[in-house]
């Protein structure tokens, strides 16, 4: 819908991330089977699929929270082995998880800088520079137009939308190379959702950060994404740019609820009929 004012990603832009043949099981539960995705510089990729399709597992592998059983992650031309979310963040991969990963007992500004705190030395002691973090958080949230009562209040006092905004602000503060958003619009009202969508759209316009977005609302997928990867039962069943597919097609794939081959065949058939 907003496609017109944002030009498509140049197909010649380099691939910045390649996750190849990723498999992951949790005990007897197989979450991902031989999944491969790639991401270009500045591209916004939507990861869609039903509940339990493996979307969150896939991005938690990228963020270093889980380690894959097999498969490789190639990031900026180098093979990566993230041992923890700390490693991935250090490499410029930021993730906003579904649960937001906010610490209720800490203030907004401590949450903003958790894991990359600013320090100052007093009598040789490395202490938190709370004033600096407070000021930076306040300024940054103002810049993004995020309205919260105070950066000093603990995040348990914020509304759902405010919490989500703070989590998103934290993830883009460090100008990451890759930004992963797991259902950033869940639990948001219309107005707040529109605001977060606006933030994503702004980032997309600048094409400075590559984004992986997990969304359930297909309407929003087409609004802010360049390409769609459809994950079903731990496998990618569709990889198409938003201009090559439609909301109806996605809904048909979801409704069919078939296995990989049947869905792929159905998808192929549907596309053939479209041509």
């Amino acid at each position, binding site marked *: 819908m907003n496609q017109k004012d944002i030009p498509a990603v140049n197909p010649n832009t380099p691939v910045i991330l390649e996750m190849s043949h990723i498999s992951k099981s949790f005990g007897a539960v197989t979450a991902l089977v031989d999944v491969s995705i790639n991401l270009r510089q500045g591209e916004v990729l939507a990861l869609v699929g039903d509940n339990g399709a493996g979307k969150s597992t896939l991005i938690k592998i990228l963020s270093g*929270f889980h380690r894959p059983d097999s498969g490789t992650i190639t990031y900026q031309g180098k093979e990566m082995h993230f041992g923890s979310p700390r490693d991935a963040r250090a490499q410029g991969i930021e993730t906003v998880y579904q649960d*937001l*990963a906010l*610490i*209720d007992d800490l203030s907004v500004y401590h949450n903003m800088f*958790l*894991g990359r705190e600013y*320090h100052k030395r007093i009598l040789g002691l*490395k202490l938190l520079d709370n004033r600096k973090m407070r000021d930076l958080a306040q300024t940054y949230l103002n810049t993004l137009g995020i309205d919260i009562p105070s950066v000093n*209040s603990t995040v348990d006092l914020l509304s759902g939308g405010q919490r989500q905004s703070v989590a998103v602000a934290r993830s883009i503060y460090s100008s990451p190379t890759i930004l992963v958003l797991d259902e950033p619009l869940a639990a948001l009202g219309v107005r707040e959702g529109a605001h977060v969508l606006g933030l994503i759209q702004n980032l997309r316009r600048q094409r400075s950060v590559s984004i992986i977005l997990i969304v359930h609302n297909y309407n929003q997928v087409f609004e802010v994404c360049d390409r769609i990867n459809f994950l079903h039962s731990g496998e990618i069943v569709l990889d198409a740019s938003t201009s090559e597919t439609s909301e109806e097609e996605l809904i048909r794939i979801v409704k069919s609820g078939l296995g990989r081959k049947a869905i792929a065949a159905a998808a192929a058939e549907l596309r053939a009929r479209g041509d």
Partner: protein
Amino acid sequence: MARTSQTRQATAHKVGIKVPDTAFEKVLVILSRYREASIAVVAIVLVVYFQLASNGAFLSPQELSVVLRDTGRFGLIAVAEVMLMITGEIDLSVGSTFSLAPYVMVLITISWGVPLAVSALVGLLLGVLIGAVNGIITVRFRVPSLITTVGTFFLLQGVVVSLYNSQPIVAPVQEPFNEIFGENLYSPTDSIWSWHGLTAFTPFLWTVLVVAAMALVLNRTTFGLHTIATGSNIVGAQEIGVRTDRIKVYNFMIAGAFAAAAGVINTTQFASADPLAGGPFLTLQAIAAAVIGGTSLLGGSGTAIGSLLGAFVVATLNNGLVMIGAQATVSDIYLGAAIVLAMILNVAVDRVRARRRI
């Protein structure tokens, strides 16, 4: 004050934040904000009561020395329990570490003629090691620390009584080590402001220093921030890159070290290493101090200063009641009631905090 008005403001244009309406809820909200102050009030009330009931004897240097020495002993362990309870863990083995570390210290000095200062360091390192083992068992094998440390409590208690036929050993006195770390040189003829007067309170003063340091660590360092994050939302903390396992193990090591230090100070005070000096009762008194000090059992919140105030309340109840002529066992009734009351209050305050979430 500022926060109250912010809360009101937020309520004005946003759903979600519940304005406290009953008087009881208002008190709980205030308590959740000024926890240390409310315990300080309790402590002052107790002091005034015992001072009046004992015809002014409670605040004499001799009695105060006893109370504050107890406060120091409980407080040093309690502040470590607070750190652990903030991460959502607990250490019940501190009572055994308290006995074992100074026992080993004295055995080393007697056996090999090593200065106490050196063997005390060995005792502290032993405490750190015990903490590390507690922590690693808890995080690696995912055993609840309540169980891990009950196990290590008995194990270490068994070790310390089997080291030397469960005999108390007379500890050597080496100055200035002893007078710095707990020996009481004060006699009624001394001025309270002399060095001898000071030694009446050394265990307490060491604990005050440690508590102040831990308050700084908790509120002004990355380690403290990550300790709170670990207990408040462990999955979220991990997702954002906090090494929660490491934070927990470090806090277990602190608990081991502080329990050992408290034991060393106790042994230095009495010039005797008793294998039964600590025991389960000491562990529980330290936890009582932490709980009375306002530390939440849910993890994520607690105060270092509160643990010292809680320790003072426990020590005051123990000694004050005896002083005004109650049987020693009667003080347990009051201590027990105080713990239950404090817990009811803590849980109520936690519920107010939880209810204010969306």
